[in-house]
């Protein structure tokens, strides 16, 4: 149990890290010219943009080894996602479930599906229509961190909410 709570604490730290550590190419350009208060549409400063969702709201939640239960930190992130999705009803999302490389390919595929579904169910419980939320499991096929230590594993055990476009096209 001690190990588990440590892992959970580490997971919480990583949630914060993940929010500030995204690929710069995904920022949507834009920066620099806007004065205080001006918002470049589509940039991370535009609260209606996918970039804002990804970076400020937080597009991912992390899980303990073998687990698909949502930590309090994960629930906070998902609450933010739900609020955003409710405020931006044109968007639909695919929730990608992932696992670390420990475990067989088959088990990890099933585990990734559990994680994606846990995130989806939480968003639905906060009022997001299920029809807007797809899930897919990648198991251990798409790690974002490639070292073979817990530091990387903790970031790979994730469910990522990917905005896949607007329902209005």
């Amino acid at each position, binding site marked *: 149990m001690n190990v588990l709570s440590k892992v959970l604490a580490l997971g919480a730290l990583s949630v914060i890290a993940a929010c500030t550590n995204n690929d710069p190419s995904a920022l949507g350009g834009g920066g620099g010219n806007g004065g205080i208060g001006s918002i470049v549409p589509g940039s991370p400063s535009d609260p209606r943009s996918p970039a804002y969702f990804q970076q400020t709201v937080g597009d991912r939640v992390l899980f303990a080894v073998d687990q698909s239960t949502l930590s309090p930190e994960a629930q906070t992130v998902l609450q933010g996602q739900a609020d955003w999705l409710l405020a931006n009803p044109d968007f639909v999302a695919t929730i990608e479930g992932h696992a670390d490389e420990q475990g067989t390919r088959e088990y990890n*595929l099933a585990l990734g599906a*559990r994680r994606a579904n*846990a995130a989806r169910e939480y968003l639905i419980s906060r009022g997001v229509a299920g029809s807007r939320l797809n*899930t*897919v499991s990648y198991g251990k096929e798409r790690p974002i961190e*490639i070292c*073979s230590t817990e530091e990387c594993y903790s970031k790979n055990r994730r469910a990522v909410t990917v905005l896949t476009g607007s329902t209005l096209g």
Partner: protein
Amino acid sequence: MMKLLTSLFVGLTLMSAPVYAQNGPLRLELDEGIIEPLPFAVPDFVPDSPAAAQFAQDISRVVAADLTGTGLFREISSDAFISRVSSFEAPVQFADWKAINADALVTGAVNVSGQKLTVRFRVWDVFSGQELGNGLQLAGTTEGWRRMAHKVADQVYSRITGEGGYFDSRVAFVSESGPKDQRLKRLAIMDYDGANVQYMTDSAAIVLAPRFSPTGDRLLYTSYESGSPRIYVTEVGRPKPRELKTQDGTMSFSPRFSPDGRSIVYSLIQGGNTDLWKMDIASGQSTRLTNTPAIETAPSYSPDGSRIVFESDRSGTPQLYVMAANGGEATRISFGAGRYGTPVWSPRGDLIAFTKQNQGRFHIGVMRIDGSEERLLTASFLDEGPTWSPNGRVIMFTRETQGASGRASLYSVDISGRNLRPVRTPDGGSDPSWGPLQN
């Protein structure tokens, strides 16, 4: 052809029993555990014409490599030869082969006529000076010379061990390239020894875990080409993948053929939960086999089709279970420390190979079908996904190395735990599926 040969061989063994009365015929009893490999010699087969020279040499080399690769045989280098074999028909100088301690001798001749390749060979028990089985002639094409060599080696193997061979077989696998976080995967098929690799898909979509049909004519695999994991079937000869459709909104993976090749058992993910289902391939009709909130995956049929072994975490950790092929109550068979996955029933029906994860290490192991006599054959950072050779003597699996530069490759190991060897592939490799002996 195989059946005929086997019966010929059995007949000959019985007939020659009196001849070998003192020591018995040359025979490796695999179940007794082979400690000392049996020394053999394969002098280059005799070409009937200059056009056959290269084939004769190459075929002899592949025969020798097949036998040596089992770990059961040790080749005596041609440097040690006293006799040269310059004619297939000439009497064998047994004293010369005894003197260099060759227990078995394989002689052969190769004829090429246009695209047609003919191989004749004999297997000799050097100690008794007798032929082991009957001389045999195989006909094929020059293009298929490696297969002819594998067939010769299969004959030698089965005449000396009394068991079926596995050299003239193919392996489907996933060819892997690129770094861990951008890995490209292609479905591929090759000879069991890594030769003749052919790619069946490009790397546009993730592909996983191909599975041969019982006769080797078709492959099942999982692909993300639709965006989520789904099961496809394709013919091996004419790759034209077709999705085996499941209900909308589901994901499906981990398929395996039934022994009659008419249906598949697979994992279906619905609402985050993974259960086992069965599908009739012709009608596309699916029926549910398990119904629990636990993960049920990696199903594999017993060779008679009556039972299914699979992995479930219903006890809290992944363990192995056996149930009737139609579903119903399942019996847990794994009880050791650690987590068990990817069980595969052996073609002989007596053993189950599995992946085990314990204390941060992965193992390939085997146990009896009731879970007794568990033996771990390998240990590494990550070993998984065993597949059986057609004769149930060898297991091929995926080994992945750790760290940022981690790479997946194929290995094989004897079920005795000896003879761990890499299987060479052009790029990385994973998820092997060993097909049947070819006709």
